[in-house]
């Protein structure tokens, strides 16, 4: 028996025995999505290698400031969500609600910046049919921002749940937080891949 199992069996059943935060089920969604985004990244790098010149020239047309701001927004929102889960565990629901609202604002800000960025690109005549680079850029960031939107839905759901939440309800919030962190993590991978890799 390994150490962890020994620890788990020495305490009350149902406590500590769980190793993953949140429900096990949410990890099916998270790992499944990460596999798919992994495929996205490999596909991108493969096709990038075929037309490195075109990809580099197109990448230079991206606005890195937007990318950096969005990275900061998502990281900050993840931090708020971490603190919110902590607050739920301590039974400080009002604080948790405020933190979730702040996290939501950051996420919504991300979508706003993305809309601004897309509009700027369309104005410059750059669309998803311009070339292969912009196909990947629009498709991948588009699919990602869709995940952000779903994540915002999850945050709304959690805000709705918070008033009646008890500390033992923390796994519900952990599950939602796990999804939100995945959305953040995917962007942390996507940002350097599209905006920085040369």
């Amino acid at each position: 028996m390994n150490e962890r199992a020994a620890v788990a069996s020495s305490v009350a059943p149902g406590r500590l025995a769980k190793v993953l935060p949140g429900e096990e089920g949410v990890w099916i969604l998270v790992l499944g999505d990460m596999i798919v985004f992994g495929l996205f990244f490999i596909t991108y790098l493969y096709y990038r290698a075929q037309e490195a010149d075109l990809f580099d020239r197109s990448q230079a047309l991206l606005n890195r400031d937007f990318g950096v701001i969005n990275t900061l927004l998502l990281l900050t929102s993840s931090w708020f969500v971490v603190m919110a889960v902590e607050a739920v565990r301590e039974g400080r629901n009002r604080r948790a609600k405020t933190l979730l609202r702040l996290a939501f604002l950051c996420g919504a800000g991300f979508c706003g910046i993305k809309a601004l960025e897309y509009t700027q690109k369309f104005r410059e005549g750059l669309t998803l049919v311009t070339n292969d680079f912009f196909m990947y850029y629009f498709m991948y960031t588009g699919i990602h921002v869709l995940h952000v939107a779903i994540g915002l839905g999850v945050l709304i759901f959690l805000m709705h749940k918070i008033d009646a939440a008890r500390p033992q309800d923390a796994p519900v919030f952990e599950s939602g937080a796990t999804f939100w962190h995945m959305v953040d993590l995917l962007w942390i991978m996507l940002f350097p891949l599209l905006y920085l890799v040369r």
Partner: protein
Amino acid sequence: MNPTTHRLCAWTGVPFIVLFTVAMIFIGHMVPPLPPSWTSAQVLDFYTTHGLAIRAATAIMMMGTAFGFTWSASVAVWTARAEGAMPVLSFGQLVCAAWSFGGIYNAIVDFSSAAFRAGRPEQIVFSLNDHGWYWIVMPGSCAELQCILIGLAVLFDKRTNPIFPRWVGYFNIWAGILQIPGAMMPFFKTGPFAWDGLFAFWMPLVVFSLWIYVDTWAVLRAIRGEVTSPALAETVAA
């Protein structure tokens, strides 16, 4: 409840997949899909060469697709039970199923009629082929919602002993999200998002098949649970 009819309906997911796979891959030569980058002459040549095989394949696909409806019903009836008195998510699933599986009918009709008459003008065959592949990929939007509605119904099940395991709910939501990129196929004639591409065709194909297997398993498990301990299935968490 008659467990036999429920099991039969759940198992119809399998003939759906088997008939479709055999017909489309081994008889009709339609997988991998005809590339959207092909010229009208290439497409006409394909339908002329394989005309008889395509018509045979579409006849079998027609029969296979019908099982998609009984299968969807077998899932919906259990999520309806999980939902309780007014199962709106389950009704939604069934309407979506009419398009996610029903949309495939349109594809079959297009492929079949493209191969129906010899000597049809090149552009008409070309256009029918386009229509067919649109109808293969586009109804993904309804399949996507069908998956997500199943997922939500599973996750909102408040019983102490849920009808479907909760991971099945998350799995369904994952499967739903993955079918979304297919909607962008009108923009591309080559690459991973074109109708023969990795993310518009192959990945949704794998996910769609997995979805049918996982949900079939979950339904059969629910039927078993109902037969062995009907009282337990009724308990709702306080």
